[in-house]
């Protein structure tokens, strides 16, 4: 025979302050847990969304990022002539030779600069990133000192508005447009004409070469071709993988910190739940005796108290999750240790995170309520009736 659900619910209802305090503690833990998962999901989404599967990135062997890399003009033209690289309608290879520099801009409200990637792109580089679209102003003109800035740079940094100019490489670079790259890492970049950028810094080599594969399965062949050519001291990666690797350290950092925090915090919340449930059992000893005398079995008592604890955790968990959904409106910009530049990403809530979060809160409720429930179910009828 099962104990009616209304009994369980009303027990929580009667002791409102205790219920609220316990659920609030659990809610906060769930909030932190969800926030960390959402942050990591947001970072992954940003990085995966940055690359196209059929684009490859080539940088110098031994270097880990585009900033460290150097690809000479000869190497770049050798790459252009390789088979397996897509050709445009005009027969030209779909390749963008790019040059990266880091410039320093002040985040709004800060006095010191943060590093921003400024990417010189070939004309084709723009069409190879179809996710990037001009939302205000216009594209930079080839052969001019004009740049366009990503949405996050525009929103989060000073001096990044259309009509303003960025000063670097001995020139003033006019901002003529703002582009939106659908929350990818490009949103945290400034783009300009690669030849102009290289000239202003007296550079003779590119940072990286981006190429589109003619066929998606031609990747292995291209890697083999590049490796075979001793003139090409390059490593090749799919663009998606390349950007995922770029954020690995940050992602690991978030995951480790988040896991450690969640475990420690949940210990606190579970202790809170256990205290509440032990007290619930203690104050209701007489009730438990009565229930048993009425014919409810031990398992029913166990289930009732466990269910009460799970319900408590569920309330806390849903509250935590509810407040976590508002985090989605926030975009944070921080230093990506690997690329040594600012990267903006948002909190992203996925169905998987919702399930994980609810399971996590139920687990807290289960562990916190288990021992008190056992204690309740083990009480002898006579003793408990006498205790009341």
């Amino acid at each position: 025979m099962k104990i009616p659900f209304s009994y369980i619910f009303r027990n929580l209802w009667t002791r409102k302050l205790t219920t609220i305090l316990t659920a609030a503690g659990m809610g906060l833990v769930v909030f932190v847990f969800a926030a960390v998962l959402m942050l990591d999901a947001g970072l992954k989404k940003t990085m995966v969304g940055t690359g196209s599967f059929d684009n490859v990135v080539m940088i110098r062997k031994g270097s880990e990022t585009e900033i460290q890399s150097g690809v000479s003009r000869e190497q770049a033209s050798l790459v252009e002539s390789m088979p397996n690289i897509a050709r445009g309608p005009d027969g030209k290879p779909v390749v963008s030779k790019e040059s990266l520099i880091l410039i320093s801009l002040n985040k709004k409200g800060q006095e010191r600069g943060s590093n921003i990637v400024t990417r010189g792109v070939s004309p084709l580089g723009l069409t190879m990133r179809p996710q990037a679209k001009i939302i205000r102003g216009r594209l930079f003109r080839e052969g001019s000192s004009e740049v366009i800035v990503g949405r996050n740079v525009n929103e989060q940094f000073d001096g990044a508005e259309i009509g303003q100019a960025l000063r670097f490489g001995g020139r003033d670079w006019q901002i003529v447009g703002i582009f939106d790259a659908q929350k990818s890492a490009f949103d945290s970049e400034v783009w300009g004409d690669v030849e102009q950028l290289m000239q202003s810094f007296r550079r003779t080599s590119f940072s990286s070469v981006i190429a589109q594969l003619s066929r998606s399965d031609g990747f292995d062949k291209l890697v083999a071709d590049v490796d075979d050519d001793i003139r090409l001291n390059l490593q090749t990666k799919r663009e998606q993988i390349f950007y995922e690797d770029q954020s690995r350290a940050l992602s690991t950092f978030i995951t480790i910190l988040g896991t450690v925090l969640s475990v420690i915090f949940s210990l606190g919340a579970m202790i809170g739940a256990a205290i509440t449930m032990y007290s619930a059992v203690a104050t209701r000893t007489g009730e438990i005796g009565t229930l048993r005398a009425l014919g409810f079995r031990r398992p029913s008592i166990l289930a009732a108290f466990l269910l009460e604890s799970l319900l408590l955790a569920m309330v806390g968990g849903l509250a935590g999750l509810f407040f976590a959904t508002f985090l989605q409106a926030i975009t944070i910009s921080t230093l990506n240790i690997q690329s040594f530049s600012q990267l903006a990403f948002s909190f992203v809530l996925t169905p998987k995170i919702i399930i994980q979060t609810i399971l996590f809160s139920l687990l807290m409720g289960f562990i916190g309520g288990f021992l008190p429930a056992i204690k309740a179910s083990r009480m002898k009828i006579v003793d408990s009736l006498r205790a009341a």
Partner: protein
Amino acid sequence: MYFLKLIFKNIFRAKLRTGLTILGLMIAILAFGLLQTVVDAFYAGSKSASASRMIMRNSVSIVFPMPISYRERIKGVDGVRAVTISNWFQGTYKERKNFFPQFAVDSENFFDLYPDFIVPAEDLLAFKRDRQGAAVGRKLAEQYGWKIGDVLPFSGTIYPGNWQFTVRAIFDGRDETTVVKQFYFHYDYLNEELKKKSPRRADQAGVFIIDVTDTSRIADIARAVDAEFKNSLAETLTETEKAFQLSFVQQSQTVVEAIRLVSFVVIIIIMAVVANTMAMTARERLSEYATLKALGFSSYFVAALIFGEALVLCLFGSGIGILLTVPAVILVSYTPLGNIFASFTLSQDTVALQAGSALVLALVASIVPSIKSARVKIVDGLRHVG
């Protein structure tokens, strides 16, 4: 005296609940202490940085070098005592995960500018004499078990190729806060190799470190040296070493702020737990408090009794938590997480914050139950059944 005795008797009446609450407090205060230490660790570099030395970098951003010829021109500026070079190397020692800062420095005068580092005179001489020599910080040497004379292989990331260094000197810090996890080697070695391999990248300095004669004029001197290179190919930005280090922390500020915020969240979580304990305690004893009042004790006495109980509980739990923080920080400083940071040590401020939060916890947790119990009418209280 009987007041204290009453508090202690009350606390240990519900042993299990008290035990669990103390355990919770312990964990929370420990977690809070560790998180605050992580935040401190981010600032370790800037804390030990000098406000009397200046760092000059390319104004575009730190990754751009400056021609080495700038050095002589900096020396010519009024108020400059000495100038040295430092280049970020970022090689990989054996495995990629072995990360520690490496700099190619002008071995001739680098350590003269850094009296913060104590290098034995004969070791310093040995370091200066060996072009492939390296001077490493004590903590770094201990971490990898290096001894003087060890030959260390590196592969370059920014500067491609294989590099080999011999440990010639191990230096200590002047005091506790000095970071001794750096790896220094000869700029000349790097430059000679670059001249052979990629001449365009040779004769470039990452940053210039400038020592001044009069620290009170430091801002003026910074402006004067920057003016020297205005409108050149590589315009410069000179700031104090402290400001330079802070600019690195600021780049990760969102993360640092998030950790700081979360460290307070754990206090709020445990606040809910302790408040709950106190609420339950007071509810159960409502009739006792009514009895006390009937005997002639004032409402304040009842409130003080509850606050006192919360205070003892919090001080007890937090006390153990603080005591545990000390070994925990030492333990963490030996893990990979602790190794990322230049210094991972428990500060006095953190301990003070921990103790402070214990007081706040006790106060907040006892407010509602105190008021409720103090206000209760004797008749209602006596009628009340837990």
